[in-house]
């Protein structure tokens, strides 16, 4: 089969750097090659190759039984994926935009998340798709829906921000026996600065473990997704401007949360800033603050603070969206405030 492998999923094999999108595509391809139980289901993923062309060419190789174009019915095909998973399959569901996963909220949180616990067996399936703002997509093509699901025991939530993580974590998600929501920041899909040379035949990266994106000793930033990169920019600026040595923890998996990694870093730096692209009230910063309070209160030299989007839908017009999104300057300001505290 390797011989037939089309060019656009062979970059890693050929030693070429891949974008995050290509890393995702390769992970899907390699998992489908490895395990006949893996199949894809979603809207326009076949001939069209998906709205972002993630699955381009897959239907030619794997055929319409393993690359299923569906009617517009997010609840229907997500529920169907669960049925297939019951029968031993490993479906990978594509949401054209993750904003539409709201249509599948009912099957995901009630049926799928609870199946194992109800004695109906594990539901190995992945629901993946593009999330996030900054692309002028407006309120219904820019959402970060992690908090719709973060509250549901039984689900896992993965949100990578590098090509390596995207590939390794998607492989792990597909092989995982529990249902996994896998979020792909659309602004990172083809971001040139994320191009990376990966090792061929790479192993999955275990879910549930945060990654230290930058080591530091003065302050911890806990974040994920696009904000890892914005935080990194802020960290550079802080190093130059104030000699501050910032540690950045990329959560990567939001559920289950790598509490140990967070606590450990906070105990080291004694100051913590939580950053997310998602809106403020009810964002994941709350749960992090709670856990830090529970386990590391004594180590805190300053309040736990957060930098987030404002509490509105995602606006469409550039000046509004830029105001909505947390900016590097916000992270810098918050970090300086904390450092001086």
């Amino acid at each position: 089969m390797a011989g037939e492998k089309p060019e656009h999923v062979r970059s890693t094999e050929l030693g070429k750097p891949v974008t995050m999108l290509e890393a995702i595509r390769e992970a899907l391809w390699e998992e489908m090659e490895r395990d006949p139980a893996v199949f894809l289901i979603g809207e326009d993923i076949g001939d069209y190759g998906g709205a972002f062309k993630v699955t381009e060419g897959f239907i030619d190789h794997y055929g319409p039984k393993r690359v299923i174009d569906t009617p517009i019915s997010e609840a229907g095909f997500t529920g169907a994926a669960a049925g297939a998973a019951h029968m031993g399959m490993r479906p990978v569901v594509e949401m054209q935009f993750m904003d539409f996963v709201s249509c599948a909220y009912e099957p995901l949180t009630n049926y799928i998340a609870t199946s194992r616990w109800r004695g109906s067996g594990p539901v190995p399936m992945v629901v993946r798709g593009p999330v996030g703002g900054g692309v002028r997509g407006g309120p219904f093509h820019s959402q970060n829906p992690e908090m719709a699901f973060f509250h549901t025991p039984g689900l896992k939530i993965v949100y990578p921000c590098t090509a390596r993580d995207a590939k390794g974590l998607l492989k792990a998600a597909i092989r995982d026996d529990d249902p996994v929501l896998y979020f792909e920041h659309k602004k990172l899909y083809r971001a040139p600065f994320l191009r990376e040379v990966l090792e061929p035949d790479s192993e999955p990266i275990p879910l549930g473990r945060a990654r230290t994106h930058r080591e530091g000793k003065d302050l911890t930033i806990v974040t994920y997704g696009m904000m890892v990169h914005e935080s990194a920019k802020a960290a550079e600026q802080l190093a130059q401007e104030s000699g501050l040595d910032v540690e950045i923890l990329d959560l990567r998996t939001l559920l289950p949360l790598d509490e140990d990694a967070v606590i450990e870093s906070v105990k080291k730096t004694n100051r913590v800033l939580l950053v997310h692209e998602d809106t403020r009230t009810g964002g994941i910063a709350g749960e992090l603050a709670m856990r830090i309070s529970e386990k590391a209160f004594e180590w805190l030299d300053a309040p736990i603070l957060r930098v987030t989007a404002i509490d509105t839908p995602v606006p469409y017009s550039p000046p509004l969206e830029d105001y909505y999104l947390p900016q590097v300057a916000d992270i810098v300001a918050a970090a300086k405030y904390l450092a001086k505290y």
Partner: protein
Amino acid sequence: MINTAGSATAAGSELSRDELTELYYHLRLTREVEQVLTNLYRQNKVIGGLYRSLGQEAVAVGTAYALRRRDDGTGDVIAPAIRNLGSLLMMGARPVDVLRQYMAKGDSPTWGREQNVHFTDYDRGFIGLISHLGIMIEVMAGVAITFKLREEERVALTWTGDGAASTGAFHEGFNLAAVQRAPMVVIIENNRYAYSTPVSKQTAAASFVARAPGYGVYGDSCDGNDVFAVLEMTRKAVEHARSGRGAALLEVHTYRRKGHAEHDSQQYVPPGELEEWEARDPVDRFMRRVIDEGWLTQADLDTIDDQVTKEVDAARETAEASPMPEAEEALAEVYGGSAARRPWTRLATPDPREA
């Protein structure tokens, strides 16, 4: 595309004595298990509600009897609705497990976590529903799509009430199966009510099977209180699905005699309606028919009745003696390989840092 033949009175004559016995056994078993449950309910031994299928047993039994029933995970697969206890039993579910479920016992198939017929056995081919109506149509569409994908000659069959047929899940799930030409059979069990809501407030259509052309699928309907008609209709649809000709939508006309649940006073039911449907009782009707036709004798039926009574009574004893679950068991199996966290406040020294 719609077969309007309805309930053929000839149906049944092709069945062997063994088959007739099997059918009667399951009709009687369903009714007896529910009767025992009613007694347990009155003794406050059932936790929560009791949902009966009295008067609808012919649907549950007749539809499931049309399937390939296996116990090794290679047969057809069903997802029962709340009034398909008879189908579950037909697929091989054990009465003792049903009773344990209703009494929330620790050794029930869901370890006391879930209720009544909400339980699964993939070997015997049934998948436990959840309360949210409609979702099982979506799930079963995926089961059917898998059979098609793997080229297995198996069928996914499920039921929906006249009420649940209004859900978006019904539409999305069934349309997906239809367009995929997956081997899926959906039976709309029109028992005239959804909780207290009459069918006239659920749809403006003359029938539910009138939806079949809108999905481009095979459609059929029949008298749901005639087990022979139900079986014949379902067999045809299952054959249609199994042979790769796609999904089927069936409607059965029946009646929900005991209300939504045991606590339902049924005050909304017009006078006379219950009596009318009691006169059409599917078990009585089966009995009259087999005796009239000379297919079985009253003595044959009595023997089965006795057997069923004994079996269910034994099951009841075992289930009653079953233990309740241990509290901490609630924590297990949320994810594979890891349990949920215990409440830190219940540690010997409550300190969240140690939890």
